[in-house]
């Protein structure tokens, strides 16, 4: 899918190419005064973001994810890229002891994180839990068969993957510093000559006032949080991260977790896994030696 791409000068040696992909604002910052070059490089990143969105979005009826979800249990042969993503999801499921699960999406049918304040009943959640569990699908690379009623969702990986892919493609075509930022998940090849990138992390539930300003010089950075997506009932705030064992949101998780790591994919998964730890999020990040910033 093609879309609009805008280019603007942000500073003497900094152009920004902006576009929308995966339902979020995306920007590519390029250390150059050449707006034409910035447009060309921005177009490379945008095309990659749109390609990945078209290929893996569960909202696109012709995406691979939609076709797997509609396969009714029939085995399907995956291409190399889809297989790698599923391998990655399988590994994350294993590393997290089952907490991270790309089949947990069906639980959304019970939860509407629109602030409306409705908590589903246990019967509904239990019924949906029957359709969740990475262990229930059969993944014999490159053949997948997903039982009828189950759904796959790469939402927890796709955006971060797109960031790393887009950066790799842009960095192949230039030597200058580039920062790819898709809705707060970002990656950079290296810092500009003037010093590291400065990244602001929004404070949850305030009006976009940056609470933290972080230096960012290499690798990836990602944030997981319930800034805008939560349900609050009787003073209990249910975040949008669901525990696949109970079918209920994880309780006691920070409002947001930001992690810096070697790649955006790694940072994003680390942040998500920390959120899944609930009250133990900070301890978990310390134990794992991850560079992180938590807001409660």
């Amino acid at each position, binding site marked *: 899918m093609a879309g609009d791409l805008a280019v603007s000068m942000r500073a003497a040696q900094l152009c920004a190419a902006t576009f929308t992909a995966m339902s979020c604002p995306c920007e590519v910052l390029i250390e150059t005064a050449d707006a034409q070059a910035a447009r060309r490089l921005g177009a490379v990143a945008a095309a990659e973001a749109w390609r990945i969105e078209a*290929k893996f979005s569960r909202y696109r009826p012709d995406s691979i994810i939609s076709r797997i979800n509609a396969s009714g249990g029939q085995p399907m*042969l995956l291409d190399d890229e889809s297989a790698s993503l599923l391998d990655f999801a399988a590994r994350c499921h294993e590393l997290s002891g089952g907490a991270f699960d790309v089949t947990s999406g069906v639980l959304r049918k019970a939860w509407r994180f629109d602030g409306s304040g409705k908590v589903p009943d246990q019967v509904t959640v239990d019924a949906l839990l029957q359709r969740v569990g990475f262990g229930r699908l059969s993944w014999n690379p490159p053949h997948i068969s997903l039982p009828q009623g189950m759904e796959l969702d790469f939402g927890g990986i796709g955006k971060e993957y797109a960031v790393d892919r887009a950066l790799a493609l842009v960095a192949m075509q230039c030597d200058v510093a580039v920062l790819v930022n898709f809705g707060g998940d970002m990656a950079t090849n290296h810092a500009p000559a003037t010093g590291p990138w400065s990244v602001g992390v929004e404070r949850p539930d305030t009006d976009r006032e940056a609470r933290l300003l972080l230096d960012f010089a290499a690798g990836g950075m990602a944030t997981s949080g319930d800034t805008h997506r939560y349900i609050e009932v009787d003073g209990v705030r249910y975040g949008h991260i669901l525990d696949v064992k109970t079918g209920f949101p994880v309780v006691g998780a920070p409002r947001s977790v930001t992690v810096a790591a070697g790649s955006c994919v790694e940072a994003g998964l680390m942040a998500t896994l920390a959120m899944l730890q609930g009250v133990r999020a900070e301890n978990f990040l310390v134990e794992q030696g*991850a560079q992180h910033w938590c807001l409660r």
Partner: protein
Amino acid sequence: MQLTKRVPGELRLGLMAAACALLVQPAQSQEAVTLASDDEKPLQVDAGVLYYKESAGRIQSYDAIVTLRKDFGDEHILGLNGAYDSLSGGSPTGAVPTKAAQTFATPSGTSLKATNGAPVTYTTSSGRKVAQLETVTVYTVSTGALPLDTGFHDQRVAGDLSWSQPFEQNNHVALGGHLSHEQDFQSISGNASFSRDFNAKNTTLGLSGNAEFDKVSPVGGVPVFGSDYTQLLKGGDRNKQVTGGQLGLTQVLARNWITQLNLSYDSSSGYLTDPYKIVSVINTLGVATGYRYESRPESRSRRSIYLGNKVALGRTVLDISLRHGTDDWGSSNDTVDARYRIPLLGDDLYIEPHLRYYQQTAADFYSLFVSSAAAIPTYLSADPRLAAFSAKTVGFKVGMKLDQDNEVSVRIEAYKQDAKVHSSTLAGLSGLDLNPSLQSFICQLNWRFNY
């Protein structure tokens, strides 16, 4: 809060490795949105012509072959194959050369009526009624020459249809059918196979079976087994059935080495004799006193073991196979076949040399001729294809990819077959080559494209 401790925990190390594995994949170019391999593919067409020529005025043939392959997605594959062959030239009759000119009848004398209009019939000892030919065309073979039935001419039309698809997890099933038509031979067959992948697709076990039904309706009728050639005793059409099975194991031994082991068995019954082949009857002086129609047993079972290997050595690929076969006619054979594919100028051009060596022992009832001094055996044949011989093939194939969807190739091969026994010390035959070497040449042009 920012932390200073940066020793990665076990989970994080695992995640780093997994992220690396995911991102190390080559980046996809932005315009080429890779389609999942379960998408429907274009129709793959393979069109070829083949010219085959044997030396010394023997057989030559022109073949046209078209193969269509359509992948409907998710490995549901339909295959269609059509072939047309035109054969002509001289085929050895089985009679040996002699020091006197020899006269034979073509098998094409087809009048089944006597001059007075009445059908001519003959009843065999087993009670079967056969028609006797009345008019025949004769031809003469000069002194010392190998008797060939030079009037040989036939056309063959054949078609294949096949379907294969995955079946549940890790299984494949395939079904196929084959029809072939010649003036004197009709064949219909069917096959089914099942295979299962194990061990993360590194091992495949396959089982297949086939059944074939043939109708033999020789020009001029089916000769009575072993009967005197001059009597031209012939009957009507005969049938032949073949059933067979194969057990195969394919194993990936290393990243660049795949091996395959097949065990095959088949059993034929019915009319297995060649209706156009005869055997010289030679007296003690080495002079032909007559000829007999050949006669083969009405059943045959064959077994074979095959070991194939494909090894990638750098950018080249070596394909080497060994095969050993035996049958209950007392014959056994061995084949060594090697091809070596060498890419030139990138991957768009390749050359593939081919060497093959084959040898077989003779069938129990094979002989160059039979003796007039002894009783005629029940089974007899002088067909050179049942003799002990060795054969060598030397050739090469050159292929060129014109673009993503077009590939052309040329294959040229030379073949030489040498019989083990091809002389006799009998005075009338001494110095004659009774089973001369066969040399042939093959040229094939192929064009593969996507439609």
